[in-house]
C-alpha cells in the first residue's frame, strides 16, 4: 500500500526520549502517546503532522531506550513511514513488530528538504520525492524481517506460528 505525505526532517541521533519523553511511560494507550509524539524535538509536531506524512532523519534514529511507546506514538499520530540514514536496532525491531514502516536510505535523507512531497511503495522499497522528481531505493529487509512485515507485524506472525503449533499437537 502506497504511503504519501509531506517530509518532516530531523537530524542524527534522534533518541527515544525526544520521540516520547520518559514521563509518559506509564501511558499505554497509543492515541494518548501520539499526542506527545516528538515532543522533545518539536513541541507542536503532533498537532502539525497529517496522516501519511513521513519522518526523514539522519543516522541512529531511535537510539536509547527500548520503549515501544516511541514507534507506537509515531504510528498513532499518523506518521506513515520513517526514512532514516540508519536506525538504532531496538527501535528498528519495534517498528517492524508493530507495523510502522521503516526504511533505511541515506541518499533519501540527504536529498530531502522539509515539506517535500514523498511517495513510498513499500513492497518495492521505492521512495519518490515528488517535489524534486528524484527516486531512491531503500535497503532491502532480510527475508525473515520481510516475512514479519508481510504478515502485518509480529502479532499476526506469532499468532500464525502458535496456530501452527496447535495444529501439530492436534495431528500428533
Amino acid at each position: 500500500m502506497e504511503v504519501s505525505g509531506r517530509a518532516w526532517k530531523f537530524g542524527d541521533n534522534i533518541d527515544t526520549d525526544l520521540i516520547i519523553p520518559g514521563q509518559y511511560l506509564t501511558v499505554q494507550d497509543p492515541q494518548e502517546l501520539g499526542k506527545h509524539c516528538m515532543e522533545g524535538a518539536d513541541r507542536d509536531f503532533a498537532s502539525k503532522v497529517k496522516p501519511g506524512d513521513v519522518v526523514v532523519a539522519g543516522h541512529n534514529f531511535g537510539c536509547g531506550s527500548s520503549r515501544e511507546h516511541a514507534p507506537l506514538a509515531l504510528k498513532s499520530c499518523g506518521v506513515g513511514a520513517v526514512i532514516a540514514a540508519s536506525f538504532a536496532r531496538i527501535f528498528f525491531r519495534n517498528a517492524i513488530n508493530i507495523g510502522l514502516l521503516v526504511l533505511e536510505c541515506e541518499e533519501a535523507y540527504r536529498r530531502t528538504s522539509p515539506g517535500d512531497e514523498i511517495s513510498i511503495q513499500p513492497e518495492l522499497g521505492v521512495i519518490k520525492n515528488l517535489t524534486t522528481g528524484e527516486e531512491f531505493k531503500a535497503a532491502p529487509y532480510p527475508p525473515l524481517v520481510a516475512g514479519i512485515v508481510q504478515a502485518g507485524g509480529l502479532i499476526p506472525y506469532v499468532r500464525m506460528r502458535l496456530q501452527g503449533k496447535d495444529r501439530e499437537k492436534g495431528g500428533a
Partner: protein
Amino acid sequence: MGMTITEKILAAHAGKDKVRPGEIVQVRPDLLMTNDISGPIAVDVFKSMGADRVFDPEKVVIVLDHFTPNKDVKAAKSSTKMREFARSQGIVHFYDAGFGIEHVVLPELGLIKPGDLVIGGDSHTVTYGALGAFATGVGSTDLAGAMALGEIWLKVPETIRFEFKGKPSRWVGGKDFILLAIGRIGVSGALYCAMEFGGEAIADLGMDGRFTMCNMAIEAGAKSGIVEPDEKTLAWLAEYGCCRGTQGGPGSGISSRTLDWLRSDRDCTYKSVIAFDVTDLEPQVAVPHLPSNVKPVSQLRDVKIHQVVIGSCTNGRISDLRAAAEILKGRKVSKWVRTLIIPGSQAVYKQALKEGLIDVFVDSGAVVAAPTCGPCFGGYLGILDEGERCVSTTNRNFVGRMGHEKSEVYLAGPYVAAASAVAGRIAHPEEV
C-alpha cells in the same frame, strides 16, 4: 576460522556448530526479563497473539522498578497489571516495588551465568555481558513473542574488541573506561555490533566495574557488551546466587573447560580492535546532550551544579556506594546541591548499612532513597527544573532526560559525583 565468544554463545543457542556475522538465527533464550514499562504492553500483546501460557514460568523474570514504589495511579495500574500476570502465569521470579533495579538484581540472584543468552525488555539488558553472557534488549512485542514461543530471531553481530592497557589511578574505574570508549567511537560507533572488553585493565577491574561497562554498551549503539569470564567472574558467582544454583551456587556448574570455551578464538574475526592506555587517564565526564560528549573532569571545574544522583543500573552497586562514601565521609554536601543516593537493590542497601555507608551518607546531608530507576529517565524523584544541572552516575544525558527540556545531565562515576556534591560544582575527587 574461529569464533568470538558472542558467536559461540549464539551458535550454541541456535543449535549450530558455527555462525557468521550477518546471519539470522532463531535462538532459545535461557531467560527473559521485563519490568513495569515494557511489561504492561507486552502483556496486552501476548494476549493479542492468542498466547495462553508463557513458554516456561521459571524463565520469565519480572521486576517492577521504573515507576516504583508507585509514582501515581497510572504507575499503580501498570504494577497491578504485572502483578496479576505474574500470579496467573505462575511466574517464579517476580520482584515487586523496591526490591531492586532489574540489572542489579538478576545477577545478584544468580539468575545469569556465563554462556547464557538473555533477552530483556529494557535496553540496559546488555549489563549481563559482564558475566560472559550474551544479553540484549528488545521492545514489548518482541518480548511477548519470546514469552509465547520460547524463541526469538537475532542477527549475529560483528564484534569490536576494546583493549584496555595499563594501571589506572585510584579515582578511575569502569565508568571512566566506558565513557572513554563511547567518546572515541560515538553514540552509533558500535551500531548493531557486539562490544568485547578485554586487556589487563579489564582483568584487574572488579565485577561491579565490568557491569558498568557492559551496561553502557547500548550508548554506543551496540547490540551487546561482553567480557570473557575469568576466575574473578567465578569467584563473584560463588559469592552470590541462590535461585538456580541449588547445587552449590550458580558458578558451580561452570568447569574450567567451559571457561576455556567461553573465550574468543585466536583466529576469530573482529570488525576492528581499538586500544586504550588508561595509565594516566583522568576521570571522564559526558557533558550534555550525548553520552559521547566526553571530557576529562579537569576541563569542567567551572560548571556549577544543583543536584547529584548516585545509583542506577549503571552505578548502583556496592563498590559504587563505597566509592561515594570514601569521598563523603566526614564531609558535608553543598547546601545548594540536592544529593540523592539510591542503592541498586535491597541486598546492596543491606550491605551498605552493614558497612556504615548509609550513616556516612545521611551525616553528609545526602538523601538515601529506596531502590528505583526513577530519576535516571525523568520518571520520578529528583526531577530537574529549567536551567538546572545534575551530575549523575546514570547512563544517558539526552535532552530532557531527567526532567525539564532545558535541564542538563553530566554523566560521571561515583567518585566525581560525590566530590561534585561537596564542591557544588564539577570536581575531581582530589579537590575535596
